[in-house]
């Protein structure tokens, strides 16, 4: 049985958090009320779970100085209402933790000028809106290298959520990493049009494996694809949290998100009155995410993967160095150049060699 106290308490805290919504809040200047809006359930064991761990870290460090509220499984079109309600209840700092919340955040922020918003991913800041995100593509490059070593069919299967730049540049980077080992590597992509739908994610994994993919990458939040890879005897990577336990025989590594330190830093800034809109995009060296211990790999494979991760972390290797050529053959950046952060964030094309339909 794999239940621990933290998870039990986690469920209880989430409930308590949800229960405080709707109750009248009395004018009270301290502690600082911090709101968290999640796109999925706290228990998705992925993206939203990790934001919630960050929230718990915030509570742990700040103690009585903060009081947090969680609203989970919020649909993008309901985000404005939830944020408005939190704002009216006296929350001064609100973390909106999804790219799909970014536009609603930009709409609601001007109506609540006394509230500071922190949007996990987005494209621009505003007077009271900050952006924060991690350079997950750095982990994707490492995944590509590992996949190329592990794959016998030379085909990676990629389960993608939505055709947004974050996902598109991740696919490009996986292939960049794979091609660095073996230029013959191919990829198949299935868009499931959901961040979290375990059944459909598993179906997509089944389809990809049936089509000959033997390493599965996922850009969705549930452990279903990895678990299925385990069942079918192929390899896979965990998303957002260390998913080793779901696939003891298939798991290679996971990208493990860690937001706690950032949350502490931002809450402190609000309390000190020094909060300014910022745009943080932390890499492997920032601690915003790390790679879970390598499993099911030979010592040589693991040390190679570690070497690549270190090279990215220290800046010796950059996944977006030129030459970069689009699928249609046009050059974006010649050899010697490098994509800017804005160009990476706006990437809406596949590289040459990736033969996948890109929904417009």
């Amino acid at each position, binding site marked *: 049985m794999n239940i621990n106290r933290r998870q039990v308490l986690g469920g209880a805290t989430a409930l308590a958090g949800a229960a405080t919504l709707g109750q009248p809040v009395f004018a009270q200047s301290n502690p600082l009320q911090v709101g968290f809006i999640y796109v999925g359930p706290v228990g998705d064991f992925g993206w939203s779970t990790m934001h919630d761990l960050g929230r718990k870290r915030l509570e742990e460090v700040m103690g009585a100085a903060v009081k947090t509220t969680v609203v989970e499984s919020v649909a993008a079109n309901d985000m404005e209402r939830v944020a408005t309600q939190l704002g009216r209840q006296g929350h001064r700092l609100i973390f909106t933790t999804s790219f799909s919340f970014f536009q609603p955040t930009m709409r609601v922020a001007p109506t609540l000028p006394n509230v500071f918003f922190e949007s996990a991913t987005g494209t621009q800041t505003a007077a009271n809106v900050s952006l924060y995100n991690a350079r997950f593509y750095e982990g994707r490059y490492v995944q590509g290298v590992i996949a190329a070593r592990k794959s016998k069919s030379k085909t990676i299967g990629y389960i993608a959520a939505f055709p947004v730049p974050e996902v598109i540049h991740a696919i490009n980077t996986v292939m960049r990493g794979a091609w660095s080992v073996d230029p013959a590597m191919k990829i198949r992509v299935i868009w499931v049009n959901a961040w979290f739908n*375990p059944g459909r994610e598993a179906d997509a994994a089944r389809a990809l494996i049936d089509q000959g993919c033997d390493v599965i990458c996922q850009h969705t939040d549930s452990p279903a694809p990895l678990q299925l890879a385990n069942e079918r005897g192929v390899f896979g990577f965990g998303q957002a949290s260390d998913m080793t336990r779901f696939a003891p025989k298939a798991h290679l590594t996971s990208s493990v998100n860690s937001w706690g330190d950032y949350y502490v830093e931002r809450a402190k800034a609000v309390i000190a009155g020094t909060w300014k809109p910022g745009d943080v995009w932390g890499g492997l060296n920032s601690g915003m995410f790390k790679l879970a211990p390598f499993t099911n790999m030979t010592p040589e494979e693991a040390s190679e993967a570690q070497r690549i991760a270190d090279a990215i972390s220290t800046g010796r290797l950059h996944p977006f160095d030129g030459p970069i050529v689009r699928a249609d053959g046009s050059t974006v950046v010649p050899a010697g150049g490098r994509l800017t952060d804005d160009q990476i964030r706006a990437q809406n094309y596949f590289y040459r060699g990736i033969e996948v339909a890109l929904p417009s």
Partner: protein
Amino acid sequence: MTMFEAILLTIITASTPLLIAAIGQLVVERSGVLNLGMEGMMIMGAACGFAAAILSGNSYIGVLAAIAAGMGMSMIFAVLTLGLAANQVASGLALSIFGLGLSGVIGAPFVGARRDTMARLDLPVLSDLPVIGKALFGQDPFVYASFALVIGVWWFLTRTKPGLILRACGESHASAHALGYPVLKIRLFAILFGGACAGLAGAYLSLVYTPFWSPGMTAGRGWIALAIVVFASWLPWRAMAGAYLFGGITILQLHAQGAGVKIPSQAMAALPYLVTIIALVIIMSRRGGQQSAPASLGVPFVPDR
């Protein structure tokens, strides 16, 4: 295993929860009750089934717990709509929302726990049949249960006297009552059967399909099951066809994407819904636009009035 067999196997896996839930709902609606609480009953089945399987270490105990959870939820609905003659649509919607919330509470301690998927049960001889053998007879016990449910419900509704009485309650509860049949009791049994099927479908999700618990993991399948009943114009065989059509197109569009077919993925994802609606329209128009719904569907019955 050939590609064709592999696809067929996946289609059956994807369609089975829809089929089990739809068959249960079909019986409920045939008795004249519209229970929109499918999604809530299904996810309660998924949560309780997984929790019981983890605690007991036995998937079959999990299945029983899931069935009990589905029936418990449907009992709430029965008390509201039969006992208090509450509005069925409102009660059903409330049940769905309630189930989604309550399942989150029950499942919270089990987030992150994992179980191996339930073992397949190869039927001797049959599973060695070429092409369809592995797909149809080398499956998990749920798939056989779904086949048995379709045959059983078809036989019950069309070939037995109790089935005829149940349908009479759905077509005209006043007439059934006048003939001396206990309409409310019959509807109660139908609702409980529907709850049991929904719970079973939920258990399939959390014990076989994706063997872990996660809040909201039914992801709308209860609603699709409701739609399939309408698509099937309340006939068991058509419900089976509907579930497999929906599941089939869902899987085929994933395969088409994987194979690099140049159609926008959003359009592909909409395809199962589109095809099901078109099929529904065709069936309806072939019946001359006539509604084939049970005449008393959704109408509360109060014997004394």
